[in-house]
């Protein structure tokens, strides 16, 4: 039931993308998102699409998984699309009552939809090919310099990885308790709002009790193994860049440079000519 919900799920596969250092994927995703917001013109658009499709192909993750992420933001996309469509000033091409569509609006709407789609799919590639643990590891290492200004980077990323680790456990627990109460005749579906809220008590109380119990156990277990925060702590699997990571950096940089070049070309030649 509840377990079928997927949140930024990792898809295990043996691909070069999976093997990349998480820092490369984090930075690469960030740069890709930036490139989406600087691109202008159809050539750049095609380049962004080709780049994304190539990465997906290499990652061996089925395309249907990428699209799953899109479902969650369909509403947001529709709203952004409509806003752009109706509220952009410019040359009018269609009008009815108070609604008017301009040429610029239509262009903007289409552009925005593609940007959002690429953005979501691009980040899905990262979350689908990187385990949450790798991701926090990468984040911790990338943000390490912030320690200098007294931001507890290690502690924050430890909290993050624990939280991420516990999401599936708590979902499973919710599922179990829900079933146990349903076996005792609980009814979570029918009735008015007050009745439904009341029906949640037999679910929420055991859930909180078990969450606290787990937190307690975990704290105890960490202390028993002498955990004392980030200072002087070494890693079992420290992150080291390999040859493929440098290659990936080069490819992403080339892509970004190409996008910037395309923008400059577009701005200087195509736009003035138009």
């Amino acid at each position, binding site marked *: 039931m509840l*377990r*079928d919900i*997927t949140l930024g*799920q990792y*898809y*295990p596969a043996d691909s070069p993308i999976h093997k990349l250092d998480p820092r490369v994927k984090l930075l690469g995703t960030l740069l890709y998102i930036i490139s989406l917001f600087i691109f202008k013109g159809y050539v750049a658009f095609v380049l962004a699409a080709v780049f994304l499709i190539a990465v997906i192909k290499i990652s061996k993750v089925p395309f249907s998984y990428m699209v799953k992420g899109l479902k969650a933001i369909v509403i947001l996309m529709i709203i952004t699309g409509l806003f752009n469509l109706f509220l952009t000033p410019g040359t009018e091409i269609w009008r009815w009552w108070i609604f008017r569509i301009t040429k610029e609006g239509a262009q903007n709407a289409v552009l925005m939809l593609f940007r959002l789609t690429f953005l979501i799919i691009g980040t899905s590639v990262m979350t689908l090919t990187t385990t949450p643990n790798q991701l926090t590891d990468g984040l911790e290492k990338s943000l390490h310099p912030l320690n200098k200004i007294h931001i507890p980077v290690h502690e924050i990323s430890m909290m993050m990885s624990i939280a991420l680790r516990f999401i599936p456990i708590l979902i499973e*627990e919710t599922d*179990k*308790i829900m*079933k*146990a*109460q*349903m*076996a*005792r*005749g*609980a*009814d979570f579906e029918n009735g008015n709002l007050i009745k439904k809220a009341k029906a949640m*008590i*037999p679910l929420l*109380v*055991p859930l909180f*009790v*078990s969450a606290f119990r787990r937190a307690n156990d975990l704290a105890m277990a960490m202390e028993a193994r002498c955990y004392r925060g980030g200072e002087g702590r070494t890693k079992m699997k420290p992150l080291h860049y390999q040859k493929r990571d440098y290659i990936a950096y080069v490819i992403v940089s080339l892509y970004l440079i190409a996008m910037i070049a395309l923008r400059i070309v577009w701005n200087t030649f195509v736009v003035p000519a138009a």
Partner: protein
Amino acid sequence: MSIILDKVNYTYSAGTAYEIQALKDINLKIEDGEFIGVIGHTGSGKSTLIQHLNGLMHATSGDIYYNGADIYDEGYDMRALRSKVGLVFQYPEHQLFETTIFDDVCYGPMNQGLPKNEAGLRAFEALRSVGFPEELYYQSPFDLSGGQKRRVAIAGVLAMKPEVLILDEPTAGLDPKGRDEILDQLALMHKERGITIILVSHSMEDVAKYVGRIIVMNQGSVMYDGIPKEVFRHYKELEAVGLAAPQVTYLMHELQEVGIPVRTDATTVEEAKAEILRVCQGRIR
């Protein structure tokens, strides 16, 4: 009247990379008044199987009939089914939530729509039948020991007076006395009220002592289904899938190997004792 499973399959996380087929073509017929033991190694699908019996899990394919009616039919009253087929989960102590133990046991009967005083009566009866000390009835369930919580949780299902009672490893983690008390109580209910009991267990001794029929699960399929003597005759095959026969079965086989002509199908200590005495007395004479 019975429960019938017809080619039941169940797949966890179907359509994802983590697909696991937990049940494969299960065909079973469970008659009224049976006392059944379900055994199988860890992960063989026991818990998955029993959750199908009261409709908590919906088979990926296949049909389940309760008293002749298809429970997957549109408009079938699942809540009524769940109050007839009681299910005590593995580690049921995590489901307690009320402020007092007594109220928690009342939760099931109240959900069945019984008036408060009748639900209370049921709760008293259920708590007494699992041997729960009366002076603790109005304490918080969260202050109890693990074993005491277990009894409260079992009472919570017993209070609903189900026709079929399913228990998933009810005695895991209990001391020998507590284990015997609970199992004896189940046996008594089976005898007196004639309810059907399905007991999932890892203890071959318990199963051999109490049940009349054993279902052996192996990797999602039914491997053996029969009376204990027959099933434990395959003790070598059972060992191959990570199970075992009761200790006395091994004893009897060893006795026979050293030349003492005992019959090897004893599954409980009492039977073994009687059989050994019979052979010994035969020799003395």
